[in-house]
């Protein structure tokens, strides 16, 4: 029982990071109809920026702000740079450019900083609180949950309640009509990329202290799991990303705890396969497709 409570609570924190990263994939899919296979590599570049800032200034928070800014800038650079060079009427060229970017960015990081795992300290203790005798969340896991929840709430408000959010949604679902209505669609696509990669950078930053450390490949497994989460939730659905993220986080935690860590990716793939068999569009996919 103690073990179950502990695994459930750590699973939620893990799930919050997964949900955040999956949300970043949903945002860029909605904005640009691209599955950004470079999301993990781009996010890790931003985490290296955070690492350098924190090392230089001693402030975790400055590093966190730096990761968000670096993620946003990198998102804009990639969207306005290499992705502008390929045709956009089908998703394949953009995805291939993204896969190429993974190699360039990860090799670049390895050349610049070496392939070693650099230990990254969490800003709060990772030792679990004891509730009676039962170990539950650590202070860091609580911080991750609160920050991820807060960022998702801010994103929900941004998309649901602001003029920018309305334009982002309009441009995402009917770009041609949006142009007629005065929405600057290219700007909205760039804004979507910036929001997306900044969100991914935050997720990777939150993940790294709980893993082996910072390394050019530190977010690779996060991407694989988050991609599964985004597909399970429905690539178009932010709510799907949140719910599926928490569910997969708890699943991974339970399988790791009761079976073995090696079985966790199999469990995720099993879930992905089962959902795709039953609902190919994902659990929370909207009924209608995007129109021109």
């Amino acid at each position, binding site marked *: 029982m103690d073990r179950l409570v502990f695994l459930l609570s750590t699973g939620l924190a893990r799930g919050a990071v997964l949900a955040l990263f999956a949300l970043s994939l949903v945002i860029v899919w909605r904005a640009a109809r691209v599955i950004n296979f470079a999301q993990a590599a781009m996010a890790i570049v931003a985490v290296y920026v955070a690492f350098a800032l924190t090392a230089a200034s001693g402030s975790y928070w400055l590093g966190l702000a730096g990761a968000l800014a670096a993620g946003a800038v990198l998102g804009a650079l990639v969207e306005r740079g290499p992705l502008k060079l390929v045709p956009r009427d089908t998703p394949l060229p953009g995805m291939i450019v993204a896969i190429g970017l993974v190699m360039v960015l990860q090799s670049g990081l390895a050349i610049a900083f070496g392939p070693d795992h650099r230990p990254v300290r969490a800003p709060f203790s990772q030792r679990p609180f004891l509730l009676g005798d039962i170990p539950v969340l650590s202070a860091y896991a609580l911080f991750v949950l609160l920050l991820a929840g807060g960022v998702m709430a801010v994103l929900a408000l941004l998309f649901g309640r*602001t*003029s*920018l959010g*309305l*334009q982002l*949604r*309009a441009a995402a*679902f*009917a770009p*041609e*009509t*949006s*142009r*007629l*209505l*005065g*929405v*600057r*669609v290219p700007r909205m696509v760039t804004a979507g990329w910036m929001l997306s990669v900044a969100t991914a950078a935050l997720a990777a930053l939150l993940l790294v202290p709980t893993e082996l450390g910072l390394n050019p490949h530190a977010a690779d497994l996060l991407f694989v799991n988050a991609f599964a989460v985004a597909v399970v939730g429905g690539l178009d659905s932010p709510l799907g990303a949140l719910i599926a993220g928490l569910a997969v986080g708890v699943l991974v935690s339970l399988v790791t705890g009761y079976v073995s860590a090696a079985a966790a990716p199999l469990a995720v793939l099993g879930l992905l396969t089962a959902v795709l068999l039953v609902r190919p569009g994902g659990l929370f996919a*909207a009924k*209608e497709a995007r*129109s021109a």
Partner: protein
Amino acid sequence: MTPTPPPEAAPRLEVSGLEVAFGGLKALDEVSFEVGDGETVALIGPNGAGKTTVFNAVCALVQPRRGAVRIGGRPAPAATTGLAAAGVSRTLQGLGLFDRMTVLENVMVPLSSLRGRAADKAAKARAVLSELDLASLAAHPAATLPYPERKRVALARALVTDPKLLLLDEPAGGLGAADIEALAATVRAVAAGGCAVLLVEHHVDFVMDVADRVVVLDFGKVIAAGEPDAVRDDPAVEAAYLGLEARTDREGVQ
């Protein structure tokens, strides 16, 4: 860069010598007409005559090979996104509603890229919804509405920016008699407010009811233009619509 002030008497929309070609096919050939402020002009003609192509040329969605479109005495915006700033609104034949958004959000989209306070924009959107008898549906998802209501939402979305030039693509299509009567009243009110209205329409009674002038297109050319009654009795117009024999002769088929 100071734009020169337009001449006082410039028509709101001036289409002159417009030629649009898709490959070897001339979709528009030497098309010229004007729409003045407060005037309602109907663009009619058989399917494929080039009516929607005129709209697309005005909206910078197709590039004319020759000729010019001027709006309020100035060259029409080269990019579609600039239309709103030039005071141009357009409805689409397919409506193009954002199905996942509410009715109110749909009508807010054209306002969202403009400056101004969010509260003022929402108030403006709600006022337009009230005028079109949509106030009670403001919070409904657009996807769930019946067709006549969807058409009114598209119209509200076009009117919410107080356009100076309104392009309506088949506004009466698919509507019943009562809805068409309400639409005609709205179009008359909009024109009475000084807006220039250009509409593409197949519904002859509606056109005769609201249009001050009618421009008839056939095979991309203007074959008649003038007041509705005069145009209706024009033999060339009758031939275009009814004279299938004359048409097959001209095309040289069979």
